[in-house]
């Protein structure tokens, strides 16, 4: 096992542990926990047996396994970024509504 494999496996284990802890505290749903488990599981598989990624790469018509990982990661990051943006916008609007209701509470004539 190479050093990078150890580091990445530990990282995945840490990520999985964090997801479980959040689930226990009720921070995320069972569905979300399953998704995280799948994600970190896939990471461990790819880290310990890089040829799996190469397999997927061949099937998708991409040259190398490592490239597939990078492409998928970028797509996932963009998606997460988009969700974050949408959520922040949504919260901004809710705060505005809250500030508005508070401001207008005593206004009448």
């Amino acid at each position, binding site marked *: 096992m190479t050093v990078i494999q150890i580091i990445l496996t530990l990282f995945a284990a840490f990520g999985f542990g964090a997801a479980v802890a959040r689930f226990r505290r009720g921070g995320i749903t069972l569905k979300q926990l399953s998704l995280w488990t799948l994600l970190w599981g896939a990471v461990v598989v790819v880290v310990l047996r890089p040829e799996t990624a190469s397999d997927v790469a061949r099937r998708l018509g991409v040259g190398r396994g490592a490239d597939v990982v990078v492409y998928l990661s970028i797509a996932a990051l963009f998606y997460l970024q988009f969700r974050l943006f949408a959520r922040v916008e949504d919260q901004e609007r809710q705060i*505005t509504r809250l500030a508005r209701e508070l401001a207008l509470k005593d206004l009448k004539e």
Partner: protein
Amino acid sequence: MEKRVIVIPAYNEEKTIAEAVRGALQAADRVLVVDDGSADRTSEIAAAAGAIVVRHAVNRGLGGALGTGIEGALRLGADLIATMDADGQHRSEDAKRAMDRVAEGDVDFVIGSRMLEKKGNMPARRRFAQFLGNALTYVLFRKWVTDSQSGLRAMSRHAAERIRIRSSRMEVSSEFVKEVVDKRLRLAEIPIEAIYTEYSLSKGQNFAVGVQTALKLILRRLLD
């Protein structure tokens, strides 16, 4: 006689708010100042000058304040609503003329344009930014107005009840145009004179904010 309310959104405008309120009171029955979470004495000074003041607990930006102001004006029973900036760049005669124009009944929404007549002293750089704002508003919302970023507007109660302001910040000016188009309201522009002082110039959109406003507008158009 219909009831007229002028809405003035204000954020840290203690230097100019008193004069803005006193001017607005010449043109309307009530002046509603929305203090957008100012850290200075904007609220006290506006109230002392004769305005009804409502206050955001936290700063929400121009769009948030205007939304609150229009909602508040409706609750006050306004038949005609105008908005003006707090920095002293608008003249109350123009707000009155804008409301008079709406009162004629053939339009629902009036924008006071600084560009219809080349009055006033708008700096060239401003004029160019202005053009970009208009062009973007046209591309996104298919409506050409000569001053899409103007802070002086008037609308009927009918229009105010239909317009939904959702943006929090500067992109609100173009959002008004969008809402006018979407809700099939009738729009007119009247020429106004803007008084540019060093103070009011320091308060408007600078280049970075302008870019942000533009990006927000494009994103909103794509996502909605």
